[in-house]
């Protein structure tokens, strides 16, 4: 019997698809990213449900940043598939369709290690700009929402300050407000605290902890092991472009299965 005509078979597939889309908000499958001959991301699959917080840990150069940048297509994967919400893409080395990329990016917000604030715009302008240009919000509405987001990260008082007039921790909070103002469904954090003093980093972690408590779906690359352990629902350990181990933080941190994970953890935790 021709499988295409098999109603049972079709039904099963339909159920599977529905199941996976009902379950996961982000679905990345077999992502590969090469830089020259080097495989920075080597066949990584990842599925994230709404409201989940995923931490990416692993040694320097493991591909944590690159993986985050594939999730909003700042880097184009060489192969694999990616779905964020209802926006899906398949990568096969051919040029990507800009509209598809934009559809994925519209769901995501990104917070950078080096903040990347716009230096010629004040804090509130940094947060308002894309709301007006991308979401078509009026100047007043964008400003009101920008102020609300700045308030949320504890920076209402700095609304009219320029980035250079703000400390590193304040700049990073502006960066978070800027991403949140676009109402993203998925927030990507690339070592948001690693350019900061530990004490200042704690301010950022406090903001992220609140976001997590509010049910924000988040993926974060981090070297803050305690934070990853207490805030994330799942931890992925990356080494040489691959996710070698994943699981609940308690399991990954206390009973890692992989020898490489143990070595990494003993190096960073000093035990």
């Amino acid at each position: 019997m021709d499988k295409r005509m098999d109603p049972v078979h079709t039904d099963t597939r339909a159920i599977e698809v529905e199941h996976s889309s009902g379950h996961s908000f982000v679905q990345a499958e077999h992502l590969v990213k090469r830089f020259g001959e080097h495989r920075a991301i080597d066949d990584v699959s990842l599925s994230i449900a709404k409201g989940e917080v995923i931490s990416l840990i692993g040694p320097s150069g493991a591909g944590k940043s690159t993986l985050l940048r594939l999730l909003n297509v700042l880097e184009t994967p060489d192969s694999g598939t990616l779905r964020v919400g209802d926006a899906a893409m398949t990568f096969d080395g051919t040029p990507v369709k800009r509209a598809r990329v934009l559809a994925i990016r519209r769901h995501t917000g990104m917070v950078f290690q080096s903040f990347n604030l716009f230096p010629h715009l004040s804090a509130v302008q940094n947060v308002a700009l894309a709301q007006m240009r991308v979401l078509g919000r009026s100047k007043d509405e964008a400003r009101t929402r920008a102020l609300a987001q700045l308030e949320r990260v504890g920076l209402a008082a700095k609304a009219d300050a320029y980035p250079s007039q703000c400390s590193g921790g304040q700049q990073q909070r502006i960066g978070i407000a800027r991403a949140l103002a676009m109402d993203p469904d998925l927030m990507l954090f690339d070592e948001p605290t690693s350019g900061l003093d530990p004490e200042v980093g704690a301010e950022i972690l406090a903001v992220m902890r609140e976001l997590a408590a509010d049910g924000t779906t988040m993926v974060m690359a981090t070297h803050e092991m305690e934070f990853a352990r207490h805030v994330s629902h799942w931890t992925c350990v990356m080494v040489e472009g691959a996710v070698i181990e994943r699981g609940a933080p308690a399991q990954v941190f206390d009973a890692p299965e992989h020898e490489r994970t143990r070595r990494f953890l003993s190096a960073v935790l000093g035990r």
Partner: protein
Amino acid sequence: MAEAFLLIAAATGATLLLTVSAALIGIVLGAPLVLLAQSRSAILRGIYTVFVHVVRGVPALVWLFIAFFGLAELGIVLPALASAVLTLGIIAIATMAEIYRGGLAAIRQGQYEAGWALSLGRWSLAKDIIFPQLFRAVSPTTATYIVGLLKDSALASIIGVPEIVYVTGLEVQSLGHGLELFLFAGLIYLALSIPLGVVSRVIHVRLTRRYAVL
């Protein structure tokens, strides 16, 4: 003598015309040229590099002679003023393109990435993010270059463009008083370049008062 001063002062118009047109040509046409330098195509980037090096690697005076005497031999006879505007204009295009390229290189990749991550369109990214930073980055260098251009415009006297130096030379030939008349010419250049420098500094300080430039 008084008449000589007046004639020299009147020649300021030609000097300004030459300077301002060459500067405008460079400021406007340098922008599309720098797009070649940013192109993905190695051929276009090569064309850019060759153009800029050839234009800037030859003394302005030589280009001026080529435009005025050389083209005439080919049957293209340009008036002296047009030759001078053409020559200084083309050099200004290459120079401004290099200034823009330096300014663009100073804008960190993270600025583009932040824009892309926010889904900003190409136009908004250029207009709202890149251009304002580029403008601030290149405005001091551009002002310095325009002052240089003002002084270079004196080269046009050699092919007979009736600008300050040419007219001063004529008057000195017929009246003498070379010291006073050329000092006067020098004062006119100072009177033009000093305010230009001051204005550009004021503009730059106002633009960048609130943030450290790159």
